[in-house]
């Protein structure tokens, strides 16, 4: 039974001010992010669900609309395709190579740019960022010309110093390394920006303390800088890995997946399944498989780096 005269007063013992504020603010926060959620659902969620839907159906564009439900048949067919195996292998080689090479270069360049008292730092950074500003298609076209066996500047320079020119994109042994090199030229800048930002935001005290204690540069780098930088490098690695696994445009311009299938990536194979073979069911299945692999690798990498960091 309530005390007369106090019915209109809120029971603050049960509903303290912070909980009331939460109930008031929570709906507002949701409302503020609703447009973003809606946009994400439309741009990401719907295509994802639709892709999964068609991957479970027989859907050949030349045979009318979406056909019968076939379950995991498309997935099984795709996994058994030899070109898919080759594309998966190529994608793995490309991804590991570009991530390792670009991370190493970016870290090295970031350390150089982060030296105290470095003059013209902004000029160096601006120059190093130029490749990132060029679209992948333009990068492909430019490098195709540079790498031309007869007319390209690369072979001309090699011949000038007495070395033989190479058929960079025309031999199976050199095509993928060449693609990796071009990608490294283009994308290292992105990792440089991320790692440099991380370096400049590291606390100075541990490094100063280590210096006072007599640690040399390598010891400071390996025991202080690198561990502190690990989360940033993880982010950079993930960003680059996900993008590398989806590489398509550079392959399209430089090699069309050739010679043979030596540079064909999974994204390129998915495009061929969808737009050349016109089999949207299998293209959808291959897309979902790629997504699952990327998700799995992301989770593994995050876990490994987290354990390393905590230890």
């Amino acid at each position, binding site marked *: 039974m309530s005390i007369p005269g106090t019915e209109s007063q809120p029971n603050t013992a049960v509903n303290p001010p912070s909980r009331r504020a939460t109930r008031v603010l929570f709906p507002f926060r949701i409302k503020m992010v609703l447009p973003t959620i809606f946009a994400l659902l439309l741009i990401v969620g719907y295509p994802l669900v639709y892709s999964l839907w068609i991957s479970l159906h027989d859907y050949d564009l030349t045979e009318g609309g979406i056909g019968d439900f076939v379950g995991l048949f498309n997935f099984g067919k795709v996994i058994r395709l030899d070109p898919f195996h080759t594309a998966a292998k190529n994608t793995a080689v490309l991804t590991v190579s570009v991530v390792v090479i670009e991370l190493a270069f970016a870290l090295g360049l970031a350390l150089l740019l982060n030296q105290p008292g470095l003059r013209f730092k902004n000029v160096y950074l601006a120059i190093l960022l130029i490749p990132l500003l060029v679209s992948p298609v333009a990068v492909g076209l430019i490098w195709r010309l540079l790498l031309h*066996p007869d007319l390209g500047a690369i072979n001309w320079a090699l011949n000038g110093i007495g070395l033989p020119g190479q058929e960079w994109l*025309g031999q199976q042994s050199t095509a993928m390394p060449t693609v990796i090199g071009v990608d490294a030229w283009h994308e290292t800048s992105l990792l440089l920006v991320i790692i440099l930002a991380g370096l400049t935001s590291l606390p100075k005290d541990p490094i100063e303390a280590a210096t006072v204690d007599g640690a040399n540069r390598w010891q400071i780098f390996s025991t202080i800088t690198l561990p502190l930088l690990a989360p940033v490098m993880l982010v950079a690695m993930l960003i680059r890995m996900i993008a590398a696994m989806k590489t398509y445009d550079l392959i399209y311009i430089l090699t069309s*997946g050739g010679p043979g299938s030596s540079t064909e990536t999974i994204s390129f194979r998915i495009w061929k399944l969808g737009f050349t073979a016109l089999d949207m069911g299998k293209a959808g299945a291959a897309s979902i498989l790629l997504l699952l692999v990327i998700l799995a690798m992301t989770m593994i990498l995050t876990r490994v780096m987290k354990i390393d960091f905590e230890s």
Partner: protein
Amino acid sequence: MKANDPSNGLFDYYMNRRRLIQSAGAAGLALAAANRLSGIAGAQEITFSREFEGTTLNALMEDLLETTLIEQMLPDFEALTGIKVQFEKVVYPVMHDKLVTQLAAGEGSGTYDFLEVDFYWVYEFARAGWVEELGLRVPDSGGAIDLTRYTDAVLAINSLVDGKNFFIPMYVYPMGLLYRKDLMEDQAFKDSYKTIAGIDLAMPTTVEEYVAVVKAINQINPGEMYGAAMQGMQGDPIVMEFCNYLFGVGGSFYNADVTAPSINDELGVKALTLYVDAMANGAQPGAANADLNDTGALWRQGKAFSSASYLFVLADAENMEDSQVKGKGAVTTMPGGSGLTGAWSWGVPKSSPNPDAAWEFIKWVESPDVAMKRALGGSVAAQKAPYDNPEYIAKYPWMAQVKDLVATGQGLPAVTKQAQLVEITGRHLSDAVSGGKAPQDAMDAAAEELKELL
């Protein structure tokens, strides 16, 4: 005016489109003036409807001379019909993808009102039910379209699907053997050839002879003159070129009934063996990753004795300012007697927002008068009449060969997914020329996948 007359500014479209349009304007107006309101086809006057006045038609077109020629005449079409036409001009490699997404959109829901269709899309588009059967509209075209104006070979390549005319031929691009006629007559060159080959230089009559010729020529002046300009890039480039070798030795993709692949039989493997040999020992460095732009440039630079290529490469070499081989090139049927003939045709998609207005455009652009104007502008005509026009042959002497090239030429086999056939074959051919597989293994692997297309 001779085709290689440098004062002929009509065809300099690659280097300066504005100059092209300006210089062609006077010629175009003069040609169109006599037929401002209607076309004349023999005794029958062809008229066009103004029923669709105010309509705008959209089409995806390959950015080439043919498109430019038609684009210059579009004001005439608009004056006749009140229909405006807008071309979205793109490079070839992106056309199929853009078209497929539109064609699958459903009836009336697409962006493009009419189509420019390459010969190896015709089965796909027709059997998928994406396009109208234009043959049904022909009888009511008032004489504007008459299929007897085209040869049976042309109709077979890119109009007929399963006995029905789905498309109207637009222009042909036959492939043949381009060669340097000046070098064939140059005594010093012939002597050098004989020193290396041990025999006199003569036009090869078989594919084997051709490969031997290009290999020998490749040794005459290495780095400055190659036996052949070849395009081994995976996909369309390598397959189109290889078809000439395959057909030249009498081979084929499938057996006569199209019930089983035959590309890995003795003839198919022979064709690939010769092709690999030519590319490794008779072509320019990097041929395994070269495309048409590369071979065309090499030809115009005068660094190739020959090329199994398209007729329009020869035409470009005669007309482009930077060409070093004006008046020096000629074309003949591919050794072995048969090469690939490609062609483009007009279609009306079921997703067209304005199919009847689109048909009006096709009637106009393929009416005899307009077709002749296009031919005189440099088009490789799909219709027979231009080849009987002395002015056409005088202007473009190599066009006299087109009849033979088309008559002896072949298209791709009648499977629905010819684009996939090109992808499969191209991948395995590329594997072979880059040393990844032996010819027999490459053709066996190709045959295994080609079986799935039946």
